[in-house]
């Protein structure tokens, strides 16, 4: 192949036709409170880990819903399981359980 000094770029778009939503479906099946997030950010603002790292529970859930599973699994490792987010969540998302399910999926994979 010829090298002209430039390359084509990978797409930056969420292609939902190709997204792997298997993890999202299994978490939703085991704990349907996963569906209830309203993206308010209470979890992240109160997060112990989030004060020192770029961890965001809200963003991790969002990544799973877009099929960005490996990023989400890596993110889940930053959680210290303190449970403050569970107290804060206005929708009663069982946040600690979601973290547990993500980590469990990692072991299964």
């Amino acid at each position, binding site marked *: 192949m010829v090298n002209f000094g*430039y390359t*084509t*770029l990978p797409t930056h778009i969420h292609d939902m036709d190709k997204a792997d939503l298997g993890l999202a479906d299994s978490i939703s099946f085991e704990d349907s409170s996963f569906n209830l997030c309203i993206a308010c950010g209470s979890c992240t603002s109160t997060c112990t880990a989030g004060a020192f790292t770029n961890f965001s529970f809200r963003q991790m859930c969002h990544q799973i819903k877009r099929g960005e599973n490996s990023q989400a699994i890596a993110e889940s490792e930053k959680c210290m399981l303190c449970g403050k987010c569970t107290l804060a969540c206005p929708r009663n998302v069982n946040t600690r359980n979601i973290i547990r399910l993500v980590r469990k999926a990692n072991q299964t994979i």
Partner: protein
Amino acid sequence: MKVEGKRKIWSDYQKDIAYDRFYYVRSCIRQTVWPGAENIYLRILREVLGKEVIESEHHTTCTGIGYHTEVVPFETLQTVVARNFALMQDAGFENYNPSCVTSFGIYTEILDTWHHFPEEKQKTRDYLKKATGREFEEPKNLAHTSDVIYKFRNEISEKSKYTLINKVTGEPLKVVDHIGCHYAKMFPAKGVGGAEYPHVLAGLVEAWGGEVIDYPERRHCCGFGFRQYLVQANRGYSISASKKKFESMESFKPDFILTNCPGCNFFMDRWQYALAEMEGKTYDENGNGIPVLTYEELAGLVLGFDPWVIGLQMHQVDVEPLLVKMGIDYDPNQKFKGINGKDLGLPESPNNLNFIK
């Protein structure tokens, strides 16, 4: 697809296109890369449609490429455009007819600016007077050359020698149309059919017997984007935009791509070569690439002009498979003979894109 819905939109976006006496203005890219296309436009208007068309050897670039890459200031742009208008008045013409979509966008934008900000027009008058001693008036009619072909599409059809029907299968040829962004995206009311479902090229395909394919990335930019191509470090960005279009149209198996903008025509043709050489991929089934035609070239083919007189040998993606489908009689030996019969020499063959000698 409900065609009646599109027809409704098309009828909402019709514009005034002059009938005769055109002041023709060339495109920097087209006259350099495909001079045959501009030549055939003039011949169709003069010889086939019997129109009066003139051009001036004194006209210049509109400076659009410089303007869009931010090396030409707006004041300069306006003054250069005003000078071109003044040349038209000198010639006694009123219908300005640019061959380039970037220029058409520039003229439209400037006329709109002068409408809303008359002080800009006055400033431009002063600059032009100081610089050249000239005065100018706005054109009575501004129509892109594709608008003019659109206006006379049925006359061309009546005089046509070939149609857009596949001679082998009897099916209409499948055509994807690509409209230059600056044709109607900035001023939808100035484009035939508007910005979302332009009719300017689709109307030609319909009138000449083909079938328009509406593919998902139809509205996406061809990838030229001025500085995205002109700056080498950005070129990956430019070619990726074209690739996105080719990927999107591939499954529809188009027989050719029809464009109305010199930049689009250039990039959709040349990037197919670059992608074939960089990634080993073509977007048709046979490794030929998808031929890319301008509306004048297509009108010329339909009217029976010789493909090599139209200048189709200047294309990177060879058009012969399309000529065969249309049943056009052509002489392969004349492909690289100049208009005086002089041998132009054979170009180098690409590695991954079929080259028809």
